[in-house]
């Protein structure tokens, strides 16, 4: 038996909005410690990793480890049926081929339940090594979304250059070039409005706008986003999901061609 109840149901709705553009289907791995999801997009350029801790739920029970393969478009359709202030409960039997979503209105006057068929997905799981990143940039998530949106007008890729002066985002294309520089915030009143850079060595990497723009769909989840970079390894974009977990996006950098 698996059951997870989340009073702040809107969080789950937002998580789905944050991943459904990148992934068509994915497996939710439910265990005693919580729920995890890891999946790559079809082209294997980016990877999404969602972690929801058991303690974060208002009620959590998972007797036996369970892998629930879901069509995320369908799951999103179901979650669209829940109001923002609804309490969401997910339920499944141990050997189930369906999962049930129960939405309760705060006043308990309206209760709806939806059952969805599960799928047996055959997906590669990647082992992600623990990495000490050369640069970790924390900035307001809205700011990051704005930068990605603005610069994608100029070109297909964004160059992120982090140095001790600050971080520079730039793009170039047919119409011209665009550069946005962010300096470290000097006086921190509110942590989530600040730009904080922790840097061991400067890093410059190039990434595809298309993916960055899909990552910023997670902006409503958290006021702050963190970008971690090291030379020649994938970028990590991380948002926290309320206080129950986090969502991480990994994006392979663009590399210079060797055979030309």
């Amino acid at each position, binding site marked *: 038996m698996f059951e997870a109840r989340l009073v702040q149901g809107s969080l789950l709705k937002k998580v789905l909005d944050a991943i459904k553009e990148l992934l068509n289907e994915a497996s939710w791995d439910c265990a005693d410690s919580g729920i995890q999801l890891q999946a790559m997009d079809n*082209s294997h350029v980016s990877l999404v990793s969602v972690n929801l801790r058991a303690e974060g739920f208002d009620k959590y029970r998972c007797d036996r480890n*369970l892998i629930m393969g879901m069509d995320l478009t369908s799951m999103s359709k179901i979650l669209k049926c829940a109001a923002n202030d609804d309490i969401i409960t997910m339920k499944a039997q141990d*050997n189930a*081929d369906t999962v049930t979503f129960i939405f309760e209105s705060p006043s308990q006057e309206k209760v709806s339940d939806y059952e969805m068929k*599960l799928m047996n997905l055959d997906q590669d799981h*990647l082992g992600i090594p623990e990495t000490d990143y050369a640069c970790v940039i924390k900035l307001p998530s809205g700011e990051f979304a704005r930068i990605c949106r603005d610069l994608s007008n100029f070109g297909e890729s964004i160059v992120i250059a982090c140095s001790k002066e600050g971080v520079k985002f730039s793009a170039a294309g047919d119409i011209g070039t665009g550069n946005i520089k962010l300096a470290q915030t000097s006086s921190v009143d509110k942590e989530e409005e600040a730009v904080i850079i922790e840097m061991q060595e400067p890093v410059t990497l190039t990434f595809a706008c298309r993916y960055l723009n899909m990552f910023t769909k997670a902006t409503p989840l958290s006021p702050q986003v963190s970008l971690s970079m090291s030379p020649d390894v994938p970028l990590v974009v991380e948002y926290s999901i309320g206080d129950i977990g986090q969502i991480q996006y*990994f994006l392979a950098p*663009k590399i210079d*061609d060797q055979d030309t």
Partner: protein
Amino acid sequence: MGILGLAKLIADVAPSAVKENEIKNYFGRKVAVDASMSLYQFLVAVRQEGNMLTNADGEVTSHLMGFFYRTIRMVDNGIKPMYVFDGKPPTMKGGELAKRQERREEAQKALEKAEEAGNVEDIDKFSRRLVKVTKTHSEEAKTLLRLMGIPYIEAPCEAEAQCAALAKAGKVYAVATEDMDALTFQTPVLLRHMTFSEARKMPIKEFHLSKVLEELNINHEEFIDLCILLGCDYCDSIRGIGPKRAIELISKHRNIEEILKHLDKKKYSVPEDWAYTEARRLFMEPEVADPADIDLKWTDPDEEGLVKYMCEEKGFNEDRIRSGSKKLVKARSGSTQGRLDTFFKVLPQPSSGVNKRKSNEKPESAKKSKSGRGSSKRGR
């Protein structure tokens, strides 16, 4: 051409070996294209009102149209194509070639009849069957590829075999052909529909040899024997043994020798002097050039050269050729997108969800879930 019914058999008995993917997901991949098959495909398919495209002098240009635009389509999607042309046909293929000649003659007769009767549909049908790839066609295609900066090689023998050798040696990621016998030649990944037109919106079908062998639970030699039983280009097959029977026999007896020992000769007539051992050898050790000696270089297209060749000689529209050439240049500029699997290792699959659950569930609940598990479970 190829192996009779192999694609369908794989889809039926080893569904996990087949994947569908969009062409844009192959960016950065090097792909070996079976040029001889593409030539044929373009001559048959690239037509206007049922006739092949020609220039003002009446020279056929369908194949050039195909090579130019379909190559650009691949390059536009970030793929690095290279072409492999057929060399001389293996002597073993004589029988198959004679059969094809026969069919061609039949089609010729049928065409004449249709022309007499004025049946437009039939004229179209039979004239397509009469298509023959000539030396000139492939020479012209090579000239075009050279001007486009796309590498090509000529195989000593069969192009599929050479493509397979390149893919096996890791020189290219996959082989793009419609011909399933590339798998028999040990192509690790075979792509179908790669050179189809954009308008057909056909997703690319990926066949993974390792998965095929794994799911059929046979090794590669057994797979070759299976292909021979299904029917290949090099020798006859046993009449009355279809895909289903073939896979049963291979799983049971493991090779053709054993099968012949146990086969009811009255029921199935084995061809006289059946040359299956030679066919097997041809699949095992095809005549190919050593992939290590092949250097693949993609270069900038020669725009003026292209215009001169395609427009002045072959009557193509200059603007279109120039814009095509620009696309080739553009695709070469800039960096390529990396893939996560090159950074992170794929973890060994801890057996899929269903199996895992099956192994630790109680017998009584197993019964229940079995009846309850409908087709909905098999998502893909």
